[in-house]
């Protein structure tokens, strides 16, 4: 018998449906099997030429077709597929009639190179200015591109397809976006505004300019060969993250509403926390205080203490700075426990799914709770001696897992953490 309210008197928020897609495959079953087997989804990019790029591999989702192709179109299609999976599992509402709002984490949208090049060709001259592009943009020939490249277009499409209620929110908190979408859903349910929320996060932005942008900030791994070995969280020879695509969807419900309709409860979002770092655009405050504060806020929100966390699903991007900072801050929060709690980074296998990562990793955390098995951090052959985490290296580990902390940190000082549990506390 569990109480429908948490220690702070708020409705307990549970997960009743999940859908996932990464470079490993489509759906929970496929992803989980490959994840615990230690398979990598990172491969040499074939979607576009990689000549002249420092990084030539990524965790692309190549098995979903979108025509005409655009990163935003791929993000939308992946979001649609994972939502279908989540809704089928939850069995909530009716077809095209989801009884709650949509919170969508999505990469920022802009006109992309294929469309820009189409426009350039349409000018029909060898020399032209931007004004010439502007002059031929109107007249209705490209009206579909207006809709495609509205920031709100993916959310509007999902809202109309699945019949979510009210105004869908499209959000970006950089690499923490997926966690933020879940947090917004949790808050709406806790406030009593809704009994259910659909939280979706998607990112299909492996395109030349996105790769160049991260490359110019020296954020990406350049260990191109073999691509499967590029993402090396917590290793001494880690050299950056690997861009990747993917999507995750979670159906959140109040415990009361879920049990009233006899839904199977997959897990609990026991706590959410968020704390802004105002130190720098891309770097964390050297003292780590904002991340420490974020983890502590999350523990407080869950009404839990560090000794109740028995697994950490790390942000673990494999950039030299992130992993070191994550270890230092986790040490500050967990004290001596830091060397005893098993830690893993899913990014070693699926890469960094950027806007989707927070949701993708929350789902992997919930699957970890379900299977009582922690997926490995692959490519962990040369541990960083200054990072004393108990990394679940290279092979999956059976473990008793009751509560997982999942961390997400992003550009712009975005820090967000979640605590997921099997049963309501």
């Amino acid at each position: 018998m569990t109480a429908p309210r948490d220690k702070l008197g708020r409705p307990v928020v549970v997960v009743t449906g999940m859908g996932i897609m990464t470079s490993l495959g489509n759906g929970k079953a496929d992803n989980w099997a490959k994840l615990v087997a230690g398979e990598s989804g990172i491969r040499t990019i074939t979607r576009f030429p990689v000549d002249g790029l420092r990084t030539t591999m990524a965790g692309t989702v190549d098995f979903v077709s979108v025509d005409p192709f655009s990163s935003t179109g791929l993000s939308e299609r992946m979001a649609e597929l994972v939502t279908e999976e989540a809704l089928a599992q939850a069995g909530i509402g009716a077809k095209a009639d989801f009884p709650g709002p949509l919170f969508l984490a999505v990469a920022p949208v802009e006109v992309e190179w294929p469309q820009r090049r189409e426009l350039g060709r349409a000018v029909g001259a060898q020399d032209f200015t931007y004004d010439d592009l502007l002059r031929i943009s109107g007249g209705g020939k490209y009206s579909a591109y207006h809709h495609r490249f509205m920031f709100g277009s993916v959310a509007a499409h999902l809202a109309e397809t699945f019949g979510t209620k009210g105004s869908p929110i499209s959000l970006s908190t950089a690499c923490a976006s997926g966690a933020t979408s879940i947090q917004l859903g949790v808050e709406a349910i806790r406030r009593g505004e809704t009994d259910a929320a659909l939280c979706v996060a998607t990112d299909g932005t492996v395109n030349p300019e996105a790769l160049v942008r991260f490359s110019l900030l020296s954020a990406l791994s350049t260990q191109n060969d073999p691509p499967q070995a590029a993402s090396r969280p917590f290793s001494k020879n880690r050299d950056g993250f690997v861009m990747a695509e993917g999507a995750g969807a979670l159906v959140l419900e109040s415990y009361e509403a879920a049990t009233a309709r006899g839904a199977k409860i997959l897990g609990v979002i026991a706590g959410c926390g968020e704390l802004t770092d105002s130190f720098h655009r891309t770097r964390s405050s050297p003292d780590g205080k904002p991340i420490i504060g974020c983890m502590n806020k999350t523990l407080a929100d869950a009404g839990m203490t560090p000794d109740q966390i028995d697994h950490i699903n790390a942000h673990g991007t494999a950039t030299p700075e992130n992993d070191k900072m994550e270890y230092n801050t986790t040490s500050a929060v967990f004290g001596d426990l830091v060397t005893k709690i098993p830690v893993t980074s899913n990014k070693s296998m699926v890469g960094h799914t950027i806007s989707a990562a927070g949701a993708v990793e929350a789902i992997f955390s919930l699957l970890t709770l379900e299977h009582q098995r922690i997926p490995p951090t692959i490519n962990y052959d040369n541990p960083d001696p200054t990072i004393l985490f108990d990394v679940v290296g290279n092979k999956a580990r059976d473990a008793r897992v009751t509560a997982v902390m999942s961390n997400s940190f992003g550009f712009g000082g975005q820090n967000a953490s979640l605590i997921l549990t099997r049963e309501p506390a």
Partner: protein
Amino acid sequence: MTDTPAKPGQTEVWITGIGLATSLGEGLDANWAALQEKRINVDEKGFAPFVVHPLMPVTFDSQIPKKGDQRQMEAWQRIGVYAAGLALDSAGIKGNKDILSKIDMVVAAGGGERDLNVDTGVLTAEAKGANAPGFLNERLMSDLRPTLFLAQLSNLLAGNIAIVNGLGGTSRTFMGEEVAGADAARIALSRIASGESDIALVGGSHNGERKDLMVLYEFGDFNLKDKFAPVWARKDHAGFALGSAGAFLVLESKAHAEARGAKPYAKLSSVVTDLARRKQSGDMEATLEKLWAKLPKREGKGAIISGATGAEPATSEEHGFLKGHADFPVRATGTMFGHTMETQFPLGLALAALSISRGALFPPNDSTGTEIEMQGAPTQIVVVGAGHWRGEGMALVEAVK
């Protein structure tokens, strides 16, 4: 529909700070004076045939003291950081570390400007025959400024506000054109009203002087061309004139404001938003009526501030809705400020709070008779924000009793 009804037991939420940097000027006095004089800053030549409302130049140093910070931002971010700083000043919390370390932020943002020279350079080289497989990659690797990405990322408006002002609460960036501004206010209001938050900075910024945005809106034939006209007078010559503006508000629980002796401009009673399907004529008007019905009862001296864009068919649908409430004097911010996209709704909230605090609605600026004079002080102003393509929002701003 999603909404933030005023529930019993929920705390009253005050607007205690307003920051404006617009085509009419910076700060509340300059904007108010321009509105009184019916001044409009519109440029029909600089981007001809497109019409824009350019930012009245400001000295960014006063709100962004470090040149290094200014260099890391593009115009849309500088405008926003500037207006956010004005809002913190106006609320009397600039530099107040205790409050700034916990203030929550919900920002409505689009994306940053592209480097048009790089884009044009790639396209013209390709037109001249450059077709090596890695041509685009090589040009982008060599021509893009490494930090331009950070000036383009949507959530880096919030990031820059935090860096410049030392904010340390939560930070959320909503995207999705016009309604993102309404949803930002809705979520911030819900969080304060329910006790999840005490104080929040809400708003957005937009640089309308951007050809890359004009291309995007030209795809849908949404840009106003050749000649300026008030929003309600564009039916046969439809479109919006992009405007540059930053508009930020400090929202605060009554108790938090009173404890620090802060005075309210007005209270934010309700924000409601929805997504009309807009498949048939009348869908959007029906949604606006539903939102209107969800607002708390209007019993005072009321007015409406509309964010109508001038684009069709949305503007005609909204006009139809307004005709059903003709007893409320209407003002369209699009006429005076241009269309500032994500910023239009926060701008409407700011002008509603300002009008209530100054005891008068600003005068009409319209040739069609849609906007009528208002005598006396408004006590309730409904802010309406209907997107040019999708998304509808509405808010009720009221005088504090």
